[in-house]
């Protein structure tokens, strides 16, 4: 069976249109980036507003016992916050596709639209491609927009202290351009896979959302000082997620098999 891009694009177009009209889902999608932008900006502002607070040095020394006496603890903590928060920021490109894909795949079962859809000439690969695009495009776009707002916000609050732009730095630029799409693909793959096996969008969302827990755990390890994040650390995460993406892609196409879906859910 030949892959017909027009049919995959039709699925993308339909799901995207449906998303645009789903106000509840749009609000959920907007709430997450707001938290991911405002929290770190608030933390950076706290450090930048009181750079001479002696407690900052105590905090900084928790992470680096050999912090030079002349080093500015506030700048050190801001740098540390920005590096660690990137791990948390990656939750967003994972989570947004989970919200969308759970609706678009398990939602087809709930709304009983699956059978007419599968009775059309569309193939499993086209369906996966179209539905994935419809969740990846908004997820990556939201991540990039949130990143832009984040950069502006951080630079505004940190400027009085550092007298120059802190963001975008190399780590974040690499992460947003390379890792965010990979993580978004991961979130989408998990949601498609789980959606193909459960009957309700809400169940699919709840189960899929569990995959963000390891990510949050890693960030917790960074904040606790057990893990030291950096370019190499995030590049390794990216490589692991790339491998998982490939496995999920193959599994999704197998699971969205017409016969399997119809005999279970049709």
């Amino acid at each position, binding site marked *: 069976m030949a892959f017909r891009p027009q049919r995959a694009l039709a699925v993308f177009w339909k799901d995207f249109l449906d998303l645009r*009209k789903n106000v509840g889902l749009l609000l959920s999608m907007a709430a997450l980036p707001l938290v991911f932008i405002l929290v770190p900006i608030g933390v950076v502002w706290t450090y930048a507003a009181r750079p001479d607070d002696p407690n900052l040095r105590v905090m900084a020394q928790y992470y680096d016992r050999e912090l030079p006496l002349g080093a500015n603890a506030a700048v050190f903590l801001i740098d540390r916050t920005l590096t660690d928060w990137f791990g948390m920021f990656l939750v967003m490109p994972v989570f947004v596709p989970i919200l969308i894909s759970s609706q678009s795949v398990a939602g087809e079962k709930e709304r009983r639209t699956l*059978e007419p859809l599968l*009775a059309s000439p569309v193939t499993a690969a086209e369906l996966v491609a179209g539905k994935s695009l419809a969740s990846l495009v908004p997820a990556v776009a939201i991540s990039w927009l949130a990143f832009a707002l984040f950069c502006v916000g951080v630079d505004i609050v940190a400027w009085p202290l550092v007298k120059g732009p802190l963001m975008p730095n190399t780590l974040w630029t690499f992460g947003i351009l390379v890792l965010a799409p990979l993580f978004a693909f991961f979130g989408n793959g998990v949601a498609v896979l789980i959606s193909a096996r459960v009957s309700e969008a809400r169940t699919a969302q709840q189960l899929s959302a569990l995959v963000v827990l390891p990510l949050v755990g890693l960030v917790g390890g960074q904040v606790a000082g057990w893990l030291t994040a950096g370019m190499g650390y995030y590049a390794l995460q990216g490589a692991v997620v790339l491998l998982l993406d490939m496995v999920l892609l193959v599994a999704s196409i197998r699971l969205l098999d*017409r016969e399997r879906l119809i005999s279970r859910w049709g």
Partner: protein
Amino acid sequence: MSGIQVQGLAKRFGARTAVEGLTFDVRPGEVFGLLGPNGAGKTTTVRMLTGLLQPSEGEATVWGCSARTQGEQLRRAVGLLTEQPGLYDRLSARENLRFFMKLHELDEAVAWPRAQAYLERFGLAGRESDACGSFSKGMRQKLAIVRTLVHDPKVIFLDEPTSGLDPESARTVRDAVEELAAEGRTIVLCSHNLAEVERLCSRVAIIQGRLLALAPLGELRRAGHALDIRVDGDAGRFLPTLAALPFAPNVMHEGGRLKVMLGDDTQAPEVLACLVGAGARVHSAVPSHRPLEEVYLELIRQGRA
């Protein structure tokens, strides 16, 4: 070869057999009824014939496409109206239809006027921009029918097409079905509405996991004879008398009318003699055919036995 040819078709889900040994064919231009109780395997059969499920055994060809090996071509040739309309509620009627036009890779310049003509016919003209979520049950059903026809299918499967429709709309749909058949399309109708089946179908298959009957409608009804009798007063008082006859016929009654199902013509004099013996004043006794419902129920009972 066009139409539908089915030979020894079976479908198993694990250890459970949904249908087996189905053999029939449907000619172009024919409206064919696929009847059976809930869970009889009608939906499974339709799903095999629309390329949604792979047969476990046997072969089916729909408009020249094998249901086993040519699923994609087959789905291009068929239109399927499912039991539930299955529309996208947040999308408008136009967007719903356009989506399926795109899936069928149709030129919208050709397909949209066709869709508009159907929308007009089914009373949905002017509602193209409204979200389907705002439609009544009947409007949703009609839009689903338009979606089924939008790619100009050669073979059409209709599952309860008039379900939820008011009498006027139901008639419009029935007229459309007749016209589609007259254009040479093959139509398979699954319905529990036997009056509709009697009006539309030339032949029917009655299934219950297997084929119980396959015959032209008239032949099926002639398979049993009946006697329409008019008597004085309430006909119901003669039911015990008729039940005591050696061949214990099935009897339906309403007011002063009795419809007595007969095994053969020779039982008619015995029925009349029995009624007269019981004091009935018989006004008329007219031989007739058994209603499809009676034939259907008897076949299902036999199938269960």
